[in-house]
């Protein structure tokens, strides 16, 4: 432990890795598809040469980004994400190389809500979003039962009405 502070203990769902891999694959797939279409058009109509260079550059960036966000990032993120809730505050921690700790006092919590996309619904996962006057923080990929309990718990501790 690098800093001598109380650290949160709870993990997020291990299915998060699958969900993130899938969604990042879809996202990058669309990106690569668009570039291929543009390259085809470029080849067919003979656009200015700088456009080809930009497209080749983009391809390299998208491929590198795909490798990182499909193979490297999801397990790292899942492995390092921790959260904790008690009467006093909500604590979040994430990141492998750069580690981030966030501390939000319960009295400053304005709202708490859960949301899920179609992929997350398939794996019965929820994002739990905690909002303050200043900003909002999202705990990603929490299993359904825990997420709903967490939402109720934070709402109760922060003395706010439950929000869908």
């Amino acid at each position, binding site marked *: 432990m690098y800093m001598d502070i109380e650290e949160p203990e709870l993990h997020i769902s291990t299915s998060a890795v699958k969900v993130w891999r899938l969604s990042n694959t879809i996202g990058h797939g669309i990106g690569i598809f668009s570039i291929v279409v543009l390259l085809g058009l470029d080849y067919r109509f003979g656009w200015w040469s700088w456009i080809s260079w930009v497209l080749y550059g983009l391809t390299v960036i998208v491929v590198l980004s795909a490798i990182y966000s499909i193979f490297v990032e999801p397990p790292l993120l899942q492995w390092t994400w921790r959260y904790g809730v008690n009467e006093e505050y909500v604590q979040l921690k994430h990141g492998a*190389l*750069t580690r981030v700790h966030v*501390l939000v006092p319960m009295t400053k919590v304005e709202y708490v809500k859960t949301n899920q996309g179609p992929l997350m619904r398939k794996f019965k996962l929820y994002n739990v979003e905690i909002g303050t006057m200043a900003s909002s923080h999202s705990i990603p990929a929490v299993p359904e039962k825990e997420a709903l309990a967490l939402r109720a718990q934070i709402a109760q501790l922060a003395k706010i009405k439950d929000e869908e």
Partner: protein
Amino acid sequence: MKKRLHPFRVVLSIVKILKNLFFPAVFLFIFHSASEAQWVMIGRIGLFLYIAVSLIVSILTWWTYRYEFRERTLHVYSGILVKSERNMPVERIQNVQKHTSFLHKLLRMTSLTLETGTGGDEASVKLDMITFSEAARIECLLNQDEEEKHDERMVHFTVSRRELIKASFTSLSFFAIIPLLASFYFTIDDFFKLNGVTKDVIDYVMGALWVLAPISVVLLIVGAAAGVITTYLRYGNFEIASDEERIYLKKGVLNESFFTITKEKVQAVKLNQSLLKRWFGLVGVELISAGNVGEEEMETNSLYPFLPVKQAYTIVEELLPAYKIETDMDQLPRASLWMKLMRPSYVWLITTVSLIWWKPQFWYVSLVLLVLIFLTRILEFYNARYKMSDTFLQLKTGAFTTVLLVTSRQKIQEIEVKHSLLQRKWQLVSIKIANRGRPVHFSEMADLPVESAENIYNWYANRL
């Protein structure tokens, strides 16, 4: 009893309409004064129609806009076709702003803005044309609970002429003359096609340096005078006063603003010092408040931009007795300097790569940029200070302009600490805190020693 704004409200609308139509009118009636073209005629008819319709709308708007105070709540009724009613409980009103523009002054009227702490369009009510006695009546209504305290208002600062002149020099407002002159020149040039003449004049002046010197001196004097005048108009009559619960600010000569802020709503105090202000020993004081401050009067939030440093500290402590500004603050360890210097600069990388790619002959720009970036970082290191006391946190950051933020544990909304691989190697941590405000105010301090960051985090976590 429901009240309307003063009928002069319509005059205000008319002035606004005419102001907006000034350029189209000049275009249609002066530039094309002799034109009989159909579109010019249509444009002119349209212009008159627009004026007529806006006039009717503004009269109806004035007629339908009514307000009243009933059961300690402000009710506002408005809308010509779609009627709406707004209720604003008096307890919710945080700040009161009185603004008397030049036009208001001519008409012997004023405007009052009542602000609640919430966000959105509905956050404030502006009564934009009322008599001074009506304004006084409303202010009295709002302060009913603490009427007797009203007399104990204490004046902390009034601006003197000498200070105003000093202020006008540090604000560099005399350089404002340059763009003004330039735009003036280009406008004339466009209209009268001076191309040939001005070129001759410039050639002549360039040829004779002895003419150039007096011209620049005159320009400088005119610029300085303009600076002094604008500063005087903005900050003349400046006064800071307070009683037990509120702070009162007054400023402006032609456009007068009067601003009230509730003390407990002050989230943080910010002291800004530009390079010039540091040389003159002046500091700008800003109060970060949760209330919604109207856009144009945003700067009223800043207490006074040119206070002498010592006086600034005492005024802040007088205004907000809970605040105590420590002058003896901690410095960053040497390792943070290395950390700051080691951090990759994306601006430099992108500039250098683009230079190599497109304009390799300008390679030295990259070198100059690098030196500038390093200089900024070194200054950032030397200026950085921090201090934590029982209830307060002070952070001082910035390279050329420094910002000292003082806030209490209660007013900090959240804290974020982070450390990268390299920072861990050098035992450093960056912290970021958030304060309420519009917009939300974030303060960041990079590369604190790990023990100090731990202290700050735990200090915040063990809140009462």
